[in-house]
């Protein structure tokens, strides 16, 4: 790990709340989102989806649809090849069912037509002969031997015998002697939990425009968190070379992990290839709910032992993740994250990946961690309650810190958990009085964060301004943060810099905007690219002054002689150097490429007060405070926004959001009416406290902040509700009917 990047410094611009570069376009409706792309001769695509949870596709008759005037192409799985590697094949099969429809909403055919009405009419003319098969949607039911098997032959070797073939993977992490640990406990609590699947709920539905030409070149415009990865997947599925497929990311109306893969893009490309014209595909909200990736649902068993003075002696978690109709990519993260906040002598976590007849899960902010930590933090709270101990004291007593061997293996470097807990304890919220039927809950949260492949170019314009070209769609304000870091490094005003997100032909490979990586990794690459440009500008000044390059240094936005021996020259500003660049060697640009390591983990603590109406089971969130370590908050507004947004999504998960399946295996609530994300009037202002414990792996100390914030709310709410009603809740969401039932009121 590169843990020696950080240098303490006084910031001039980083840490200020500058104007956002995308703000005007977004509030005036000028921003170009996925569905805003159009092309001459464009056709409209539309997808036919399975109404069954599980069905063999005996045949698909598209002749009547093809015969309809205005229909230019019809696509089914037969038009695609069969990719060799499991992963690409799963992605493709999820975009277009091959042989079997695996969930309600699974795509089975698609059309391209001259207008939307014709496309809609054409879908009605496609005859699919289905043989309905038994289905399973619940994680525990799907694990039982004898459960309907979603896909055969996907079980990894290390999965013990005795389960359904739906159980595809098993993970185990931890260290120490559990039996000895539990023997030392004064009290052991064992409890089981369930959580419902939730959707990222981004406002913008998936949309793309694909144009494949007869000479084999293709362009794709789409809303995605990672257009380089879209290129990899689509090129793999369509058998194209990367150089021939250029992908451009649109402005994005939210992703939260849900736009880290493809659902419609390969289909649009195939339709365009067959029709010979550009094809636009835009999902409806119903399609987004039924056929993109919500996150996992889960079932878990937690066992924790504690001494009466609050030291955890042993901890064990078994986590079962339902990941939809394909092997699940989330289980391992959750299994690792469960006890990350604790310094434990004996700990073990077991994770199980389970397939069901539901849409394939996709990443959702800190994938896997919220449901695992929800269960763990609920049991820790119950133990605190049992002994009458202060829950913050107990967490401080057991907190992971620098040098702690984490529950998932590595030893932590500098981390911010203790500082975060202490900030929560010192905050007036923690001491504020509570009224009747009110309760306070708290929870720790954690996320690993990621670095990854990153490539940045920084061009110094001859008028003294700077353009930055980077390859990560901006979901959380990264263009502002990147410009700020470059301004800091170059010593020029923020307003003189414009950062753009370039297409896949303009830069080397950039990993997806995920893992809270962009401000960390793209920021790091930007700082290094700026330093590269600075070196070159110093060289130009040296040339002009006729002195050695080493005798020039960069100070406050200008080249200056390094010391008295270098000679006496007035400073040359960036603008002055840029203005004469044609005479000193041509354009000036800085570059940096890296597979960034050293993304520091981020901890958070949430405090939450609720009031429960005992006659209706309704929960009102009265007060909510987020404490989180940001390493360095480059643009504090955006950091607060991430902390607030994560909290709100977690509150929705805890209280009302859920995928509801009927007996028939069909999703019953694919609308924002019945899939209830919190609305503004449901929430108090979410208060935020940013901690800055520098990440040793970043020049400015930056840690990712995008994901940790969704982790604590589930347990914070559950603990608060449990205190308010005097009963321990163990299932999410805690919807009013569920709370009223627990209270015995209905």
């Amino acid at each position, binding site marked *: 790990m590169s843990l020696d990047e950080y240098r303490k410094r006084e910031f001039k611009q980083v840490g200020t709340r500058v104007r956002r570069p995308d703000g005007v376009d977004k509030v005036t409706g000028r921003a170009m989102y996925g569905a805003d792309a159009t092309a001459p001769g464009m056709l409209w695509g539309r997808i036919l989806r399975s109404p069954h949870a599980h069905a063999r596709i005996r045949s698909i008759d598209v002749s009547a649809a093809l015969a309809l005037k205005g229909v230019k192409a019809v696509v089914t799985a037969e038009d695609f090849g069969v990719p060799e590697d499991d992963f690409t094949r799963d992605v493709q099969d999820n975009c277009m069912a091959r042989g079997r429809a695996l969930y309600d909403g699974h795509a089975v055919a698609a059309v391209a037509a001259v207008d939307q009405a014709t496309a*809609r009419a054409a879908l009605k003319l496609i005859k699919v002969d289905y043989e309905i098969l038994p289905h399973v949607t619940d994680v525990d039911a799907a694990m039982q031997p004898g459960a309907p098997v979603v896909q055969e032959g996907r079980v990894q070797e290390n999965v013990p015998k005795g389960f359904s073939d739906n159980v595809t993977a098993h993970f185990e992490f931890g260290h120490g002697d559990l039996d000895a640990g539990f023997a030392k406990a004064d009290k052991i609590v064992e409890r089981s939990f369930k959580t419902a699947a939730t959707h990222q709920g981004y406002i913008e539905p998936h949309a793309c425009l694909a144009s494949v030409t007869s000479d084999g070149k293709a362009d794709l415009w789409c809303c995605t968190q990672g257009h380089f990865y879209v290129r990899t997947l689509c090129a793999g599925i369509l058998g194209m070379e990367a150089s021939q497929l250029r992908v451009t990311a649109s402005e994005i109306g939210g992703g939260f992990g849900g736009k880290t893969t493809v659902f419609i893009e390969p289909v649009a490309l195939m339709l365009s290839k067959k029709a010979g014209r550009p094809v636009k595909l835009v999902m409806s909200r*119903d399609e987004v709910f039924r056929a993109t990736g919500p996150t996992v649902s889960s079932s878990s068993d937690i066992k924790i032992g504690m001494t009466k003075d609050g030291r955890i002696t042993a901890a064990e978690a078994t986590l079962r993740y339902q990941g939809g109709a394909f092997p699940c990519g989330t289980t391992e993260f959750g299994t690792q994250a469960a006890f990350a906040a604790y310094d434990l002598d004996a700990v073990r976590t077991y994770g199980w990946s389970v397939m069901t007849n539901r849409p394939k899960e996709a990443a959702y902010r800190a994938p896997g961690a919220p449901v695992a930590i929800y269960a763990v933090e609920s049991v820790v709270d119950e133990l605190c309650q049992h002994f009458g101990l202060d829950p913050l004291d107990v967490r401080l007593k057991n907190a992971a810190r620098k040098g702690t061997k984490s529950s998932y293996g590595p030893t932590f470097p500098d981390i911010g958990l203790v500082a975060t807990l202490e900030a929560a304890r010192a905050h007036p919220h923690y001491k504020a009085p509570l009224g009747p039927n009110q309760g306070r809950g708290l929870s720790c949260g954690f996320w690993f964060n990621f670095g990854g492949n990153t490539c940045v170019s920084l061009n110094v314009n001859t008028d003294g301004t700077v353009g930055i070209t980077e390859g990560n769609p901006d979901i959380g304000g990264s263009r502002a943060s990147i410009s700020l870091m470059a301004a800091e490094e170059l010593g020029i005003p923020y307003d003189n810099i414009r950062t753009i997100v370039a297409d896949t032909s303009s830069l080397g490979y950039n990993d997806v905007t995920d893992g809270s990586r962009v401000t960390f990794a793209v920021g790091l690459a930007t700082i290094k690219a700026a330093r590269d440009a600075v070196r070159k500008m110093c060289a130009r000044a040296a040339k002009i002054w006729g002195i050695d390059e080493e005798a020039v240094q960069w100070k406050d936005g200008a080249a200056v002689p390094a010391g008295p021996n270098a000679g006496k020259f007035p400073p040359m500003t960036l603008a002055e150097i840029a203005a004469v660049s044609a005479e000193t060697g041509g354009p000036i640009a800085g570059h940096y490429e890296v597979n960034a390591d050293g993304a520091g983990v981020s901890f958070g603590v949430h405090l939450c007060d609720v009031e429960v109406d005992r*006659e*209706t*089971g*309704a929960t009102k969130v009265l007060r909510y405070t987020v404490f989180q370590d940001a390493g360095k908050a480059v643009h504090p507004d955006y950091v607060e926004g991430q902390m607030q947004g994560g909290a709100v999504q977690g509150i929705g998960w805890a*209280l*009302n959001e859920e995928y*509801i399946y009927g007996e028939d295996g069909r999703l*019953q*609530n694919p609308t924002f*009416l*019945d899939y*209830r994300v*919190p*609305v503004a*009037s*449901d929430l108090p202002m979410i208060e935020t406290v940013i901690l800055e414990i520098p990440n040793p792996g970043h020049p400015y100390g930056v840690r990712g902040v995008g994901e940790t914030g969704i982790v604590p709310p589930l347990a914070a709410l559950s603990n608060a509700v449990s205190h308010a009603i005097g009963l321990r809740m163990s299932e999410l969401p805690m*919807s*009013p*009917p569920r709370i*009223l*039932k627990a209270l015995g*009121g*209905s």
Partner: protein
Amino acid sequence: MRYLAATTAAEAAAALAAETGLTRVLAGGTDVLVQLRSGLVEPELVVDIKKIPGMREITAEAGGFRIGAAVSGAEIGEHEALCALWPGVTEGVQLIGSTQVQGRCTMTGNLCNASPAGDAVPSLVAANAVARIAGPQGERDCPVAEIPSGPGKTTLKKGEIISSIFLPARPGRASDAYLRFIPRTEMDIAVASAAVSLELDSGGTVKTARIALGAVAPTVIAVDAAAALLVGTRLDDGTLAKMAQACEAVCKPIDDKRGTVAFRTKTAGTLARRAALIAYARAGGSR
């Protein structure tokens, strides 16, 4: 699909009566447009009634108010005298949707959409409101309670439209209240709801009472047995508990993603009790 902006109620009625295919009346369109966009209905004819004179007016009549069928929720909310006379009705209307939806949605559209969960309907039923209907055969009046006949269905005959709703005069010590339960605070649909309208004597004893429940049966239902329990009382706790039980006894809700039978039933009783207390206080009663 054809669109007609009618200029008289008779023209609207005639066009609707003549059309053999599916029709929709367009008031605020906050139900109709959603249904069109989602492909739920594909009507042959849509008749807009907003251009018909009088449809967008609230007029005082016989001590009460006549509310045109195309008056928006926001306009109702801004009418002080109407809000003072029938606060339960106007608060029900104003719960519909959001600020944006309020600018378009109508009380009559809410009634004719015939959802058992419509927020304007229970209070209208409790108020004994009367709908004026224009049809191919001329005009007729009909109690609002008799308009819905089941989810999405009304007793309106082919070609009939509602032109206005009449809220009658009421004595001094009288008022009403409406409450709904939704899991969120707005942008949601009632899981259960209750409207209570009360008239008190000079001593604060209930003289007459009407109770209507929403979202617990195929249509909004008036619960006369529960209302009768309130008469002659000052809403003591024992009476309220019995009244809530009487409400629960008539609930026949569906069990679905929005709420269980047990939850809807229990909550309807709770809301009726709470709404009765609000209406009582508004009417000047003190327990």
